[in-house]
Structure formats: C-alpha cells, structure tokens
C-alpha cells in the first residue's frame, strides 16, 4: 500500500484525459507548466463559449479539468455556471463533479447560491438516496448561512423520517451538525430532538456513530433537552463493551468492537455529571471497569492497530472517570493503568499517559497516587527523545508538585533547564518560578532558586519573574539580608546576566546596608562591583543602577563623593539618552542640595507591595491559555490552604501612602503595572469549558437583555448576585462587575476570571482582549466586591466571553459560569446621515455576502417607541425621515475594532398584521452583518 514501488506513469492510463496536464516528469520547468495550463484554460473557455451547446458528458469533462487545474494551485475564474448546470443532470457522475466543484470553489463565488440551493432542494426531494447524499454532503461541506436559512428546517425532517435510508440519515445528522455550528440560531429545536436522541438505539451502528456526534454538540448547549441521551448512551456502550470481538462484524476493527463509536459515546457522557439514577450509574461503572479490565488482558493481536484502538477507548474512559471525579476506586485504577503506560515501549502511549495523568493530578482522590510516579516522570524528562513528550513530563511534574516534593521537582526542572529545548525554556522558567514561590517554606531557598534561574537561563527570565523576586524580598524582612548577601556573591561572577545585574542593583540599593558591616562587602566594594557591570548594560538597566547609586548616597554617606563623581562624569551628565541624562542631573542635584533628613525621606526603603496574584502565574496563564492553568492552580491553591497553610501574604501596607518617591521612578516602573492579571486570548482549553470545570458543565447564558443596555443584574442565585455597569467607546470598553455575597458566611478563595471564548476561526485570530485584576479572595457575608475589566475588541467576534467564578462556601467548592454580555454591537459608534447618503451606501453594499436578512415573529408587543429605544441602545444611530415608509426604522453606525472599522446599515420593517419583522443588515463584512443581525433579531 502506497509503497510507491510501481512506476507511477502506468497508472495514469486509467485517467488518460487528465494526464496531459500533470506531467510526472519533474524535468519540465514551471513556465512550461503554466503555458500548458493557459493553453488548456483557453481551450476550455472556448468550448464553454462555443456556439454548439455542450452535452453533459463534455461539460462534466471540462469542469473536472478546471477543478484539477485549480487543485494544482492555479486560479480559476470561470466555469461556475457550467458546474451549477451539472447539478440538474440526472447522471450521477455529472452531478457529482458539479457538487464537488461547488464544495471546493464556492468561497470564491457565491452569487450562484440561489441556483445552487434550488438544485439542492430538488435533490433532497428526489427520494433518490444517492442524490440526497450528494446534496447533503454539499450542504455539510459549504455550510454557509444562506444554506442554513434554506435547509435548517428540511434536514431535521429527513433525519427523523421513518423511510429515510440509513446512509442518508448518517449524512443528514452530520449535515445538521454543520448547520448548527455555523448558524445555531437558525436550527430550531423541536419535535425532532427527542427522536434524534432515540437514534442512539438505531440498529445501524453507522447511524449511531453520526448521531452521537450531533447529540454531543447539541447537548453541550442544551443539556436539559438531551438529558435522556445519558441512559441510552450508557446502555449502548454497555452492549458494545460486553460484546465478543466478532459480534459487531463490520464494526469490529482489529478485534476491537466499534472503537470510534465507544469513544464518541464516552465523550457524550462527558457533557453530563455522573448519572443520578443508581441503575444507570451502576451500569456505567461496570462498563468503565470492563474497559479497565480489558486493558490488562493479553492482546488479541500483535498489530499496533489493535492496541491503538483498544487504548483509544481506554483513554476516553479515563477522561470520563476524571471528568466525573467521584469514584475514588476508578480514579486510582486509572492512575495505575497510566502508570504502566509511562514505561511502555510505544512513545505514543508514554506521551498520552503523561498528558492524561496531568489532569488526574488535580483530583484530590488521585493526587497522591500520581505522585508515586515521580521518578518515572523525572526519568522521562531526562531520556525522552521527542520534545513534545518532554514537554508533557514538565507539565505533569508541575501538576503533581506540592509541598512534599517541591524541592525535588524544582531541582530537577532546573537541571533539565540547562539542556532544555529553546522552544520550552521560557515556560519552564515560569513554572519553576511559580513553584518556588508557592511552595517556599524557606525564602532563602526561593531566592537561590530564582538566582539559579537567571544564571542558567537568563535570557528566558522575563520581567515578571525578576519583578516578582524583588516584590517578595521587599515584602519579607526575614529574607532581605540573605538576598543581599546572595546577589552580592552572584555578582562576583565575571560574566553575569543582565537580569542578575537588575535584581542585584535593586536589592543592594534597598538592603545593601544589611551586609555592609562585613569588610568584604563594604559600601565601596558594593558600589564598585555594581559599577563594574554598568557599562556593559542596556539603557534601562543603567537607569536602574543610577537609582541604586542615589539610594547608596542615602544609605552610605561615606561613598557619596565617589558617586557624585560618577554622576558628574560626561558619560552621565551628557549622555545622549535623555532618561539617563535626566536621572544623572536630578540625582546629582538631589545629593548636593538635600539635607540628610530630606534624603532619608525621599529615598526611603520601598514600602511593601500590596499582595496580588503572582504576575508570573498570570504570564503562564497567558502563555498556556487560561483554563489549563486555572484548573490545576485552583485545585492546588485550595489544597494548599487546607493542608499546608500556604505562604502568608504580607498585608497590604496602609502606610504605603508614602508611595514610590519621585526620585526613584524608573526602578519601580512596571513593578506595579505589570501585576495585572492578563487574561488575553491564547485559549487552549477554553473551548471546552466542561473539561475545565467538571462539576458544572453548563454556562448560564447571560441574558440577551444586555444587548441593548449596559447596566443591570447579570446573575443571581441563592449565594451570589452579580451586577454590571459598563461603558464602551470605539473599540475599547470597561466593565465594572459587582459581586454580592448574599449569605452571612464568608466566601473564600473567591476567584472570578473572565475568559474570552474562541469562535470558529480561533485557530488564527484573537478577537477580544480582556484585562483585569483579581479581587480580594475573601468576600465577607453581606459584602460586595468590585472588579474592573478592561476590554479591547481586536476584530469582530461571535462568542461572548465567559465569566468563571470559583469560591469556597461553607466547605464546598462552588463554580459558576456566566456569559459576559460583551457583544459585537457594543463597539458601535452611531453615524448620522441623510436619506440620500443612506440609500447611496445601501446600494454600494449590494453584494450578497454583505447583506444578511432575517424574517421573524415578534416576541414582544410591537411598540414604536420601544423599538426606537432598542435600536439606539443597540448602538447605531436611528435615522428619522430616511426611509420613505415611515413605519420602517433605519439605522447606521460604525463597528470599531482594533484591526478594522466596518460601516453598518440596518433596516427594520415591521408588519403589524402578521406580527412579523424583517431585519436587513448591510455591512462590508459578512461576519459582521451576520452577527449584528443575530443579535438584533433577538430583541423584538
């Protein structure tokens, strides 16, 4: 198979008509190919334009050639019409080529969409299963909104009709899934939903396979409606796993019964908590046990396909066990199974075991069991050849780290860092820095670890890391003397990293006096040591050192003349860099004119930093995507509070009012600013909220009432009320979130985190940036805390961000997820225009992709004034006396994003008699038109 042993040219005989285009001999030049293709294109064009009407066969032949040329990488700008003509042929081959051409090329030309939809409609109604299949595949492949509008009603009917052929059902199920993904608003839930669930019982396993995918996706957004799928999925799964390897015939793959279907069913079950019905739950537990048992049986085949298929099911079963996180027995068994895989000879299995164990480590039932594998994981770090496996090992060490093994893990990570791949160094640095801080019993160890980090991987130590060590040293007076001594020693090295000079300069400037008693580190020695590095450093570091020097003037009057000499030197006072020159001038002047008292006040020791979330943690979250880290972090934080007591945060000093004095600007620059909790969109795990927060897979939808207003109550349950106030301007916004504790008991570890969610094209783009600071983790009974979220809209987006809130209340861990009502229309700026302008622009935007229209039934009384208020609240200008029909409403505005500005026109035509509206949006961007139309349609 694909061995490539046969001479390739011989095969070309089967498709001779394409052969001239694709010369297998590599000798021919690119120009020759282009020439040949152009000749062929000209030929085809003349055939299409010729007087003689082409018969179906020739038309198909030429359309097929065009497609082939396109797939070779050449542009095709004609033939669409001929392809559409082929759709109405009665011959399978002609129809197939027509549909294929459209599926592959439709993006570049969708003006024909009406004709295409017409042909699809005919084929769907043809009762010919082959033609129905082609039509459904075309819808599933293109999946445009126009198609959703045309077929979202029809496809569910085909899916559940009693006389539909099995293969058509399979296609219909997935076709519907595609439409639901692109335009969920157009796929109405209805009678068909309950019948779809029963497809899980279908005799044809192919139908079950397709239906399970559909149900899983629908259940994620509508868990209540699809709740009955749980027991059906369990019984189906149970029948599969207990069947003998030959029972399922066609669906047995290398002696494994229906592996893909089993995986899908196990995934579906991960949309739900453990079944409540004890019988169902018992049956599921039996299934999971059977799967775990089978892993221990001798393999039925030596082929890798057998073990892969078997293990695919096993890993999915383990995911479900971890997701439920409720059966200690299963969790520990899963952990032991993964432990075996850690030493398996297959690299794939070692990799997957490391990955899966990482999630197990955060369950309290299995955390200890995971820890027993520490030596194997460390060994993997040292010996694995594949960097992605080593990366997983680093992740797992990080996840399994707690107070008992922190010193060992940090030491191993540090030693791995010496040889680690460049691609993962920065991440390891962050992880080491976080673990060292979190589990530091002894802050001397912490300081040593960070200095080691700088020594080993200085280039990868980001600002956050060295800012953090300084914050901690400043906040903890028991470590200041040690820190001063250690940086002093580290600076003795002939070549030390600039980051060390920064840390050293800062710490000696604050606490150099603590070691000045030792003649080996007298003030002058300290100064000379720092100044010996000065000229090799970059401007920002030199600026920092100048501040250190002025601090020395205060700490050590005896070195004042030396320092004044340095400041007075031409290389300082006349430095070409403005910042350096200014500092030199000001510091020199300050040292000359100020009295000792004034110097002591101005240059006082830095006050403690208010304790906030570690800036490093925020950085790691940013790097890895929020949920992957949060979920480990929070569980860990919770545990460390219970068991270890955690490092006590230094109290935010009330006397900090002194603030950083004006004379020491630059060395504390950034120290405060960079503490923001960055939540920007790098999301890796956010697309599966059910994974990150296993107990509560549902996200409550923040009501659509916020589309047209900015203030109000977003969420309320018995414990918590969330209120909102927000303001938007161009592409920026600010949201104040108020969390009210409705109980009389404290909330602990209160961590609200807004996370943007990815839309469909998140693979390539960031749409929304959210920045916020963490709130005080303790919320007293009856109290309210406030959080400010700064919002930046980078480009247009569909998915509203989610606010995840976790806290402990009376010993239980609470989890709430709410959609934040940040919708695209918030970035609207109204534009006034005259009737003439409006219609002129309206005509300019007449391309079918630019217009989106929705006709819908009124959900509220059709009141003119309320409608006007809503349109204004939506953000656009309400243009009076523009539409010739006074009953209609028109609006205009500009959607501002960082990357673009999109002009938008809208027109709402009410039909009082029918109690319907027709809403039309025209913008220069298809996605914007679509989204705005969706949002506004919900309002009336």
């Amino acid at each position, binding site marked *: 198979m694909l061995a490539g042993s046969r001479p390739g040219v011989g095969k070309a005989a089967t498709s001779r008509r394409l052969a001239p285009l694709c010369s297998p001999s590599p000798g021919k030049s690119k120009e020759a190919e282009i020439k040949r293709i152009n000749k062929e294109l000209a030929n085809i064009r003349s055939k299409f334009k010729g007087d003689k009407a082409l018969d179906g066969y020739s038309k198909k032949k030429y359309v097929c050639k065009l497609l082939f040329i396109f797939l070779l990488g050449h542009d095709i700008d004609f033939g669409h019409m001929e392809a559409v003509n082929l759709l109405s042929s009665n011959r399978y081959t002609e129809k197939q080529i027509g549909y294929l051409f459209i599926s592959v090329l439709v993006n570049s030309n969708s003006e024909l969409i009406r004709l295409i939809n017409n042909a699809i409609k005919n084929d769907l109604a043809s009762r010919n299963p082959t033609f129905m299949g082609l039509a459904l595949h075309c819808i599933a492949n293109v999946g445009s909104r126009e198609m959703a509008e045309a077929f979202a009603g029809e496809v569910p009917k085909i899916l559940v009709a009693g006389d539909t052929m099995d293969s058509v059902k*399979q296609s219909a199920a997935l076709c519907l899934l595609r439409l639901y993904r692109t335009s969920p608003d157009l796929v109405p839930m209805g009678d068909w939903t309950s019948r779809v669930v029963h497809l899980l019982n279908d005799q044809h396993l192919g139908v079950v396979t397709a239906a399970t995918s559909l149900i899983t996706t629908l259940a994620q957004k509508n868990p209540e409606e699809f709740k009955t799928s749980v027991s059906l999925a369990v019984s189906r799964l149970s029948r599969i796993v207990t069947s003998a390897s030959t029972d399922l015939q066609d669906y047995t793959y290398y002696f494994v019964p229906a592996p*893909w279907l089993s995986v899908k069913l196990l995934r579906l079950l991960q949309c739900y908590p453990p079944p409540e019905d004890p019988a169902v739950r018992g049956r599921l537990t039996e299934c999971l046990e059977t799967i775990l048992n089978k892993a221990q049986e001798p393999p039925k085949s030596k082929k890798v396909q057998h073990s892969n298929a078997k293990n695919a099911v096993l890993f999915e079963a383990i995911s479900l066990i971890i997701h439920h996180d409720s059966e200690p027995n299963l969790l520990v068994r899963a952990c032991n199974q993964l432990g075996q895989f850690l030493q398996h000879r297959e690299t794939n299995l070692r990799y997957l075991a490391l990955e899966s164990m990482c999630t197990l480590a955060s369950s309290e039932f299995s955390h200890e069991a995971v820890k027993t594998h520490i030596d194997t994981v460390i060994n993997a770090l040292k010996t694995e050849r594949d960097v992605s496996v080593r990366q997983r090992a680093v992740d797992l060490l990080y996840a399994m780290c707690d107070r008992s093994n922190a010193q060992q893990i940090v030491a191993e990570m540090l030693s791995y860092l010496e040889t680690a791949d460049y691609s993962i160094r920065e991440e390891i640095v962050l992880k080491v820095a976080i673990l060292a801080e979190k589990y530091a019993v002894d802050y001397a160890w912490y300081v040593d670890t960070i200095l080691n980090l700088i020594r080993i991987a200085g280039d990868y130590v980001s600002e956050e890391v060295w800012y953090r060590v300084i914050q901690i040293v400043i906040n903890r007076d028991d470590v200041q003397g040690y820190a001063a001594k250690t940086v002093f020693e580290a600076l003795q090295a002939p070549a030390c990293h600039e980051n060390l000079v920064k840390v050293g300069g800062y710490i000696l400037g604050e606490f150099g006096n603590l070691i000045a008693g030792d003649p080996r580190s007298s003030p002058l020695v300290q100064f000379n040591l720092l100044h010996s590095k000065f000229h090799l450093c970059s401007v920002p570091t030199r600026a920092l050192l100048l501040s250190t020097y002025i601090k020395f003037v205060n700490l050590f009057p005896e070195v004042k003349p030396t320092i004044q000499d340095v400041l007075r030197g031409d290389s300082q006072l006349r430095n070409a860099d403005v910042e350096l020159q200014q500092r030199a001038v000001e510091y020199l002047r300050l040292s000359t004119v100020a009295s000792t008292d004034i110097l002591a006040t101005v240059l006082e020791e830095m006050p403690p930093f208010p304790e906030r979330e570690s800036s490093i943690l925020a950085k790691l979250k940013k790097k890895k995507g929020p949920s992957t880290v949060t979920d480990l972090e929070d569980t860990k934080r919770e545990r460390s509070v219970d068991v270890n007591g955690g490092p006590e945060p230094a109290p935010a000093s009330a006397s900090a009012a002194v603030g950083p004095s004006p004379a020491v600007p630059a060395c504390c620059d950034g120290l405060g600013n960079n503490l923001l909790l960055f939540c920007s969109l790098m999301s890796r795990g956010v697309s599966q909220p059910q994974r990150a927060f296993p107990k509560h897979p549902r996200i409550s939808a923040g009501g659509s009432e916020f589309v047209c207003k900015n203030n109000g109550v977003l969420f309320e349950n018995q414990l918590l009320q969330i209120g909102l106030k927000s303001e938007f301007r161009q592409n920026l916004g600010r949201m104040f979130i108020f969390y009210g504790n409705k109980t009389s008991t404290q909330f602990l570890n209160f961590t609200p985190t807004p996370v943007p969610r990815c839309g469909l094209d998140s693979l390539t783009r960031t749409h929304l940036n959210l920045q916020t600071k963490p709130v005080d983790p303790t919320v007293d009974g009856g109290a309210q805390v406030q959080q400010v979220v700064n919002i930046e809209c980078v480009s247009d987006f569909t998915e509203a961000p989610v606010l995840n809130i976790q806290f402990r209340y009376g010993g239980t861990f609470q989890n709430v997820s709410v959609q934040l009502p940040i919708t695209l229309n918030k970035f609207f700026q109204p534009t006034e225009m005259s009737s003439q302008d409006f219609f002129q622009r309206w005509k300019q935007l007449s391309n079918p992709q630019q217009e989106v229209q929705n006709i819908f039934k009124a959900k509220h009384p059709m009141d003119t004034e309320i409608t006007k208020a809503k349109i204004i609240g939506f953000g656009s200008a309400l243009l009076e006396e523009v539409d010739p029909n006074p009953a209609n409403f028109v609006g205009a505005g500009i959607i501002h994003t960082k990357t673009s500005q999109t002009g938008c026109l809208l027109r709402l035509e009410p039909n009082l008699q029918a109690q319907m509206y027709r809403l039309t949006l025209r913008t220069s961007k298809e996605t914007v038109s679509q989204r705005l139309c969706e949002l506004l349609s919900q309002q009336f």
Partner: protein
Amino acid sequence: RVWIRFILIQNRAGKTRLAKWYMQFDDDEKQKLIEEVHAVVTVRDAKHTNFVEFRNFKIIYRRYAGLYFCICVDVNDNNLAYLEAIHNFVEVLNEYFHNVCELDLVFNFYKVYTVVDEMFLAGEIRETSQTKVLKQLLMLQSLE
C-alpha cells in the same frame, strides 16, 4: 466543540494531494497552514509520537511511504482514535484503488473526495465500517 478542523495529505516535497477543510479559512490562510503543517511534520522521525502540537491545536499524523496523512483536531481530543481513523481511511483507499499509490490520489482526486465524504463529514467521523464504505463506493462506481 471538538471536531476535525482539516485533513491534509501531503507528500514529502510538500505537494498537497488532498486538502479538506472543515472550517472557513481564506485562501492565504489555507496556504499558510499547508506550509506550516508540512514543516512541522516532516522534521519528525519514526521514534517520535504521531502527535504534534500546532498553534492551539494538534496534528495527528501518520506517514505511509512518501505521503503524510494529517488530521488537525483540538488538543484534548482523542489522539489514538484519530490515528486509527487515518489508518482505517488508508485501508479503504488501498482496497478501493487496489494497492493505492500517490498517483491514484492525483488522477482520481474526485473519487478521493467521495471516499473522504463517506468516512468523514462536517469534521466528524461518519462511517467506520470498511465493508459498508466499500459497498457504497462500488455502488457509486457502478453508476459511472
């Protein structure tokens, strides 16, 4: 919210033999993805895993002679299930084209698309039974 984002078949030189997209990309983006996937996959050796992290996603791939079969999925999707889905697909191609080779995929591209649509649709696994898929393909062939 877990599905196949795209399927690519490429040869070692980077020529695309099949590209099937299950989400919207513009043409430039497609070209970029094709190049990046090729760069990521071809540098790996046989001792490496069949999984590579790629942007915020994962490529599950398998090499057959000079061809790389790649599937792009979410990072937490079931790696082995897709790895075997690739093999299942290749076995069907092999049976259908009677010992398939790269040029079969080139010249019979329109048939390859049909095979893909029978086995994968809308980014999901549609049919896994080789017998059923081949039966359907032979039926369609008889209509030609």
